[in-house]
C-alpha cells in the first residue's frame, strides 16, 4: 500500500513540474502547484507518519503549529498591503 502512495507522490511531483510549464496566469499556476504540494505533505503526514491511524487528538499538535504559521503569514500580509 505504501508503494502505491509513493507512486502517487512521485506522480504528483511530476505533475507539479509539468504544471509550471502550462499556459496560464503565473499566480494561478503557483496556487495549483502549492495545492498539489500541500496534498503531498498531508499524504505523507497521514500515511507515513501514520496520523490517519493514530488517535485524532495527536493531530492537534501539528495542526496547531500550522495554524500558528498561517497566523504569522496573515499578519505579515497585512503589513504588506501598505506596500512597505
Amino acid at each position, binding site marked *: 500500500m505504501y508503494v502505491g502512495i509513493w507512486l502517487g507522490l512521485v506522480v504528483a511531483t511530476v505533475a507539479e513540474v509539468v504544471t*509550471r510549464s502550462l499556459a496560464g496566469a503565473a499566480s494561478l499556476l503557483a496556487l495549483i502547484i502549492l495545492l498539489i504540494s500541500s496534498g503531498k505533505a498531508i499524504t505523507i503526514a497521514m500515511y507515513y507518519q501514520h496520523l490517519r491511524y493514530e488517535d485524532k487528538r495527536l493531530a492537534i499538535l501539528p495542526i496547531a503549529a500550522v495554524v500558528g504559521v498561517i497566523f504569522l503569514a496573515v499578519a505579515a500580509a497585512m503589513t504588506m498591503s501598505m506596500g512597505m
Partner: protein
Amino acid sequence: MTEDYEHREESKSTYAPIILAAGIAVLLFGFVIFLPLAVVGGIIIGAAVFMLFKDGANEKFAEFKESVEEKWPLEFLSKEKLGIWLFLVSEILIFGGLIVAYVYVRLSSNSWPVATQTHDVILGMSNTIILLTSSLAMVFALYSIRGGNIKGLRIGLIGTFSLGAAFLVIKLGIEWPQYYRNGFTISSGLPGSTYFLLTGLHAAHVGAGLVAVGYLLFRSFHGGFTNTKHSAVENIGLYWHFVDIVWMFLFPLFYLI
C-alpha cells in the same frame, strides 16, 4: 544529610549533557571569533553524540517504570513519541517562520528572477523523488521490525540512509557548485540568500537525520530492536518524514514558482 544522598542514586548521572552543551557553545564561539575553534566545537559535539549513542545501546536510560497512571488525553502516546511530536511542532514553526519570511521578502521586492533561470528543475525533481523514496524505505524498515524481520529493518534503514546521503551529495556536490559557478550564491541577492539559507537549513536537518538513522542502523546490528521494542525506529521515522514534508514545500517554492 546522609538520607539526602541515598535517593540521589536513583537518578542516573552522565557527562554527556554538559559536554554536548560545551561543544555547541564552542562551535558558536568559533563561528564568531575563530573558525578552527568551530571545528573543535564540532569534535566535542561528536564526542558527546557518541556518548549518547553508547548510552542508547546500553539502554542505560531506558524508561524506568514510573507509577504513571494519569495520562489523559494522550494516554496512547509513549513519552518519546509525544516528545518527538512536540519537537516537530517547534520545527514547523521555525521552518514556517522562515518560509513566511521568504514569501514576504519575495512579494515585497520589485523583481525576482524566474525560477528556471536560477534553478535546475530536473535535478531538483530527481532529488525530490529520491527523498520520497527514502521515506518509503523508512516505512519499510518500520513495518519490517514490527513483524520481527530484522533483516528487512536493516535493508530499509540502509536504503533510507543511502538515499538521504544521495540527496545531500547531489545537492551539495553537484547542484550547489553549479549554481555558484553561475554566480547564484548566498550573497548574490535575496533570491540566492533565501534559497541557500532555507535549503541549507533543510540539508542540515537531513544530515542530522542521517546521524539518527546511522544510530538506528548501529543498534539494529547489535540486536537492539525486536518486534515489540522498536520505538526509536518509529520516532526517528516521524522526524525523517517531517524533513521530507518540508522539502515538499521548498521544492515548488524555489524551483517551480
